[in-house]
């Protein structure tokens, strides 16, 4: 990872404030809604409801290396350790007697979009029962091939059903003008985020995927607010400064790598060190690019439906291959690493074939490794290191 960013301090403060705000808000009568990462949160912000991201809580537990501890509480209730690690963290914390990353914030209501996966709705269903809070699912059928009006219209219908649900359960009013304002702010922030990500294409680059994993919290949680815009403005400025001064993400950048998908949170440092030691910088991932979209504020609901249903997480096999190849081209990658993440079936199933196809079509070497994004019980360091070393060896040979 790069030398510490000035904005890192800012981020830490912001996140601390965000976590503190949850309880405060509830006390002052602002409802807390659990939401999912790829979800039209813009509507939630437009209605002055507080969005809380239980996935973030899971990632935090994972990064602090306590996911397995929290998971054990869930496992005692009969949840198996092969479920999504975020869900296990969240469910585990609800039943836990000690809270190494603080308490997960109980919801007043839960709104879930299944564009990402089927784990989130199952987790939210269970949480809705546990917290006795109303639950709403925004259903987004897979776009296997072509975008069709069928799925989009279904989603738009549901956005209105959701507005109705939110008004009924919270007593708050939805106003289109407010949504338009929020969408503008969201577009601004996502655009800035995109610019930051793009600096990874420079050679040598001031910023890479592991940095992006750290700096992405605000684009997930605060897109739609001025806070996110300010944050990415500051980050962009700092990156420009780094470019001017010649500060690079790793000391000797020789290779650029595409990485799929989520990082192994408790081993983020280990991975970034290993890549750096091999003069390889991970420069792109579909994961960090998930929030680099733009809204058309002249058609708010349609635009929300398009952005959230046409995300790669809701796409079929071929689209995902093409997306990875596009990233590899845009960021001039020399090879790719695919993470078969035991926690995340939707992003892992199909990777074995994709690895082969991408190498056939691009001629670039790629590797698949097995682990879990949060749970270190499934991390076998030696095996992964051998795989990656062999991959780096290939890169050196190819160059």
């Amino acid at each position, binding site marked *: 990872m790069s030398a510490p960013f000035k904005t890192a301090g800012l981020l830490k403060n912001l996140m601390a404030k965000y976590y503190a705000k949850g309880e405060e808000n509830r006390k002052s009568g602002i409802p807390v809604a659990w939401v999912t990462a790829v979800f039209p949160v813009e509507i939630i912000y437009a209605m002055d409801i507080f969005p809380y991201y239980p996935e973030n809580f899971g990632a935090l537990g994972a990064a602090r290396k306590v996911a397995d501890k929290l998971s054990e509480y869930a496992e005692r209730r009969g*949840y198996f350790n092969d479920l999504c690690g975020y*869900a296990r963290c969240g469910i585990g914390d609800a039943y836990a007697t000690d809270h190494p990353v603080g308490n997960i914030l109980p919801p007043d209501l839960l709104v879930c979009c299944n564009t990402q996966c089927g784990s989130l709705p199952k987790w939210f*269903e*269970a949480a809705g029962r546990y917290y006795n809070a109303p639950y709403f*699912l925004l259903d987004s059928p897979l776009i296997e091939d072509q975008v069709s009006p069928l799925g989009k219209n279904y989603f738009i219908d549901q956005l209105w059903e959701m507005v109705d649900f939110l008004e009924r359960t919270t007593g708050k009013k939805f106003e289109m003008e407010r949504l338009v304002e929020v969408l503008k702010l969201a577009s601004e922030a996502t655009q800035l985020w995109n610019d930051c990500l793009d600096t990874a294409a420079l050679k040598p680059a001031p910023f890479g995927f592991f940095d992006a994993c750290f700096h992405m919290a605000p684009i997930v949680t605060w897109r739609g607010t001025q806070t996110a815009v300010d944050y990415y403005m500051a980050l962009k400025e700092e990156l420009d400064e780094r470019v001017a001064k010649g500060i690079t993400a790793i000391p000797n950048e020789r290779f650029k790598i595409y990485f799929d998908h989520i990082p192994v949170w408790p081993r983020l440092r280990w991975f970034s060190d290993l890549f750096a030691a091999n003069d390889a910088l991970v420069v792109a991932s579909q994961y960090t690019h998930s929030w680099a979209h733009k809204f058309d504020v002249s058609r708010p609901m349609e635009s929300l439906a398009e952005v959230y249903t046409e995300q790669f997480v809701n796409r079929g096999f071929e689209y995902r291959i093409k997306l990875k190849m596009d990233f590899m081209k845009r960021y001039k990658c020399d090879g790719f690493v695919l993470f078969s993440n035991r926690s995340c079936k939707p992003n892992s199933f*199909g990777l*074995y*074939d994709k690895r082969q196809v991408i190498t056939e079509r691009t001629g670039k070497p790629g590797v698949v490794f097995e682990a879990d994004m949060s749970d270190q019980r499934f991390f076998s360091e030696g095996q992964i290191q051998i795989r990656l070393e062999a991959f780096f060896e290939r890169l050196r040979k190819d160059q």
Partner: protein
Amino acid sequence: MAIEQLLARFNAAVAEPYAEAKKRKEQGQKVIGWLPTDVPEELIHAAGAFPVGVLGTNEHIYLADAHLQTWACSLMRGCLEQGLNGNLDFLDGIIIPHTCDTTRMLVGIWRHALSTPYIDNYLMPRQIDRPSARTYLKGELARLKDNLEKCTGKVITNEALKDSINVFNANRTVLRRLYEYHSTNTAVISSRMLYTVIKAAMFMDKAEHTTLVEELLKELANISTSNDKRVRLAISGGVWEPPEILDMIEELGAVVVADDLLTGARYMGPDVIADGDPLDALAVRQLNRIPFGGFDSTTRERRGFLVETAQNAGVQGMVFLHLKFCEPENYDYNDMREAMNKAGIPNIRLETEYANTSLGQARTRLQAFIEMMGGSK
């Protein structure tokens, strides 16, 4: 036909699941396979094609491992295995439903690794309580209908679809009658046999299957045994696999009289009421199916439904039979168990796989469970 002969027919169909489909194929009929669960077979039938269930394999899985992680459920690994080892080469098409993330991703792998001429997915809505679900589902069924027409070269008329719906309704009706019969006369045919008859419907010609079940019911009408003292159990889960698990339950002194399995009660589900638009009628049937692990309904919650089912069937215990790595079941389990406990229904969870499972441990636990309820053998 005598009862034994009839049962032998069903057993044969399940032992050679693709025999009838292959025969049809040789006779020039198109054959479309479907994976569990909920694929509207009526549409396939109405297109003049033969629908056949692809339900995994109890044989060793190894070819699939190159394409699908071993931490996918053995049901889907087994389906893919059969595609890869050539067992499904006779298919003109396959429809893979979106039941969970595994089936959602399997479509792409299937397209890449296999050359089945027509591959589609059935994207059922994942919520069923709001008006949008019905509108969408009608559109989705229309899409499937179009694609099936292209695949078979035959237009699916409303009349043909209504006829097919009648064929399937008739089949569901006789299956439900058999199910009810078995619930009161548990000693006549075994639990495994009951479920074999249901499963056979997924492989046989529907009309022929209906006739055979009717004959069976006629034969059974003369026999009644209300004096079975064995423990009455319900099963909840996806599939009754491996099949020996049902034998084991009976050997240990219990019988299965209720379930919510995909290869059980869910298959017999509600009839299609086809007075008006048949596609709308198919949509309504889908929305009214019994709850399952895929998604919960806020108006008809699964665990409440299970308690009710168990109580109505007068069972003494509930067996949660879950396939290893099946996420939907695992997410539901804690709350289902709590609901059972609250209702005073003893329950146990067994985790199985299609193949290579040693059932030794399951036997020990089941034995203790059944003995606790006063049964033994």
